């Protein structure tokens, strides 16, 4: 356990990237949104929806790929086993996602209490991600972190193990499969059924359930790739 904590510490020892920057960028995105909607409030009344929340997710996904390509090789040189590195990093990703989701929940409550920061802003309450139950809200905030971070880590590991060829083979295959699937759906005229199915799904399943399943698959696949990765 101490070994796992020590390896997790490799990611947080220089905390600027893992903690300071994601939140700094989120706050700057929030401020810009508040200023813009304050300026146009008289012209465009009503609720103001924005997707600025995505910034923190993207910053952390990029961080996750960078950490994989830089911290992992360093850890190997320090005698850390691949398994240990992956376990520690995955646990940190999980704990981080929940902790960040709790902070987002608090910000959401603040946004609700202040009338959308005084400008009817729906920054933390954008449609689709806002749910009433506080526990469920934490899950809905946390899962996209897991989804993006594990997929991003998986792609970075593909690069470490098989180089650019491996990464592009995988991306190419993914694009090809997706394209073939949509061609098939278009040809058979299944789009309406798929649309109806999506509409029938409850919001938590769409924004948390299915992405969590993909995150879990990426996490397990990542373990398979890292066990023979020799950067």
């Amino acid at each position: 356990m101490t070994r796992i904590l020590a390896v997790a510490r490799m990611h947080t020892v220089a905390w600027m990237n893992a903690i300071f920057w994601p939140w700094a960028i989120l706050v700057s995105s929030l401020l810009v949104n508040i200023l813009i909607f304050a300026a146009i409030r008289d012209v465009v009344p009503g609720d103001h929806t924005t997707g600025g929340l995505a910034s923190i997710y993207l910053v952390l996904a990029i961080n996750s790929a960078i950490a994989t390509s830089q911290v992992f090789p360093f850890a190997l040189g320090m005698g850390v086993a691949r398994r240990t590195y992956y376990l520690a990093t995955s646990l940190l990703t999980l704990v981080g996602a929940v902790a960040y989701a709790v902070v987002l929940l608090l910000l959401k409550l603040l946004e609700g209490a202040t009338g959308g920061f005084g400008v009817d802003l729906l920054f933390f309450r954008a449609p689709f991600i806002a749910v009433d139950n506080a526990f469920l809200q934490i899950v809905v905030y946390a899962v996209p972190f897991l989804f993006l971070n594990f997929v991003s880590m998986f792609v970075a590991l593909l690069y470490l193990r098989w180089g650019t060829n491996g990464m592009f083979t995988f991306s190419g295959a993914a694009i090809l499969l997706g394209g073939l699937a949509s061609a098939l759906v278009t040809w058979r005229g299944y789009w309406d059924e798929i649309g109806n199915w999506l509409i029938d799904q409850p919001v938590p399943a769409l924004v948390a359930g299915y992405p969590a399943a993909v995150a879990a698959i990426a996490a397990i696949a990542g373990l398979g790739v890292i066990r023979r990765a020799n950067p």
Partner: protein
Amino acid sequence: MTVVTASGLTKRYSDVTALADVSFTLKENTIYGLLGRNGAGKTTLMRLITGQDLLTAGTLELFGEPPYENERVLSNVVFIKESQKYPSVYKVRHVLTVAGQLLPNWDAAYAQELLRDFRLPLDRDVRKLSRGMLSALGVIVGLAARAPLTFFDEPYLGLDAVSRQLFYDRLLADYAEHPRTVVLSTHLIDEVSDLIERVLLLDRGRLLLDEETEGLRGEVMDATGPADALDEFAISHPELHRQRMGNFARATLRGPFDQGDRLRAKERGIDLEPLTLQQAVVRLTTVGRPDEEKEYSR
């Protein structure tokens, strides 16, 4: 105690054989010099022992167990690479903090002392360190780790002469107090020839030599004398290199040379002179390649 046992160790990358049937052991509390030309397989060998790569064939034991993904034995090893990259957000002090947490025998006070010796700024971003400072950081981590098995893969890149001497002095002093096994891979052979107790010489993926440094000193000799006499004398020893200067010639011969050999040389007016370790390595690793021999004898 045996630290590393390798037998029939072979590593092939798609079309290159980096190591071919290499067998040797590393004993505890010894300083080894891992020598050889670029591409001889030195780094590959160290990567295999430190569990960074998988072997193609053969067996390899680190403290009695296969090293790959084996944290129990890997925690006894530290590998300082010439091209070691640190996470770009790290400062020097972050590297030391992390090393302190991951390496069981880490001596923080000693690391601080080395930091002062090498004049390394604690709060400098690692990506802003010069080549020499980066090497110094590796040296500090490698020494303060006090790992039972320490690998230095060309640790001196960009280090000035003063810092290199500092490294050799510190290594020797600390080794005397805290004996351990050190493997030093280097091209600056003369600089470390007093330091290393045993030489492992790799050439094109094969182990050419595994000998005590002391024993090796008289093992390769330059014999200089009249060309005819030299021809006669040289016949009994493998010849690595020859140069002619008029009626005189100089041949580099491989021993062993006993008292009888020395006597025969003296009778024929042949002067026997031991090569430095570096010269011996150069001669041993250029045999049979006339084009390259020319390059070296210039």
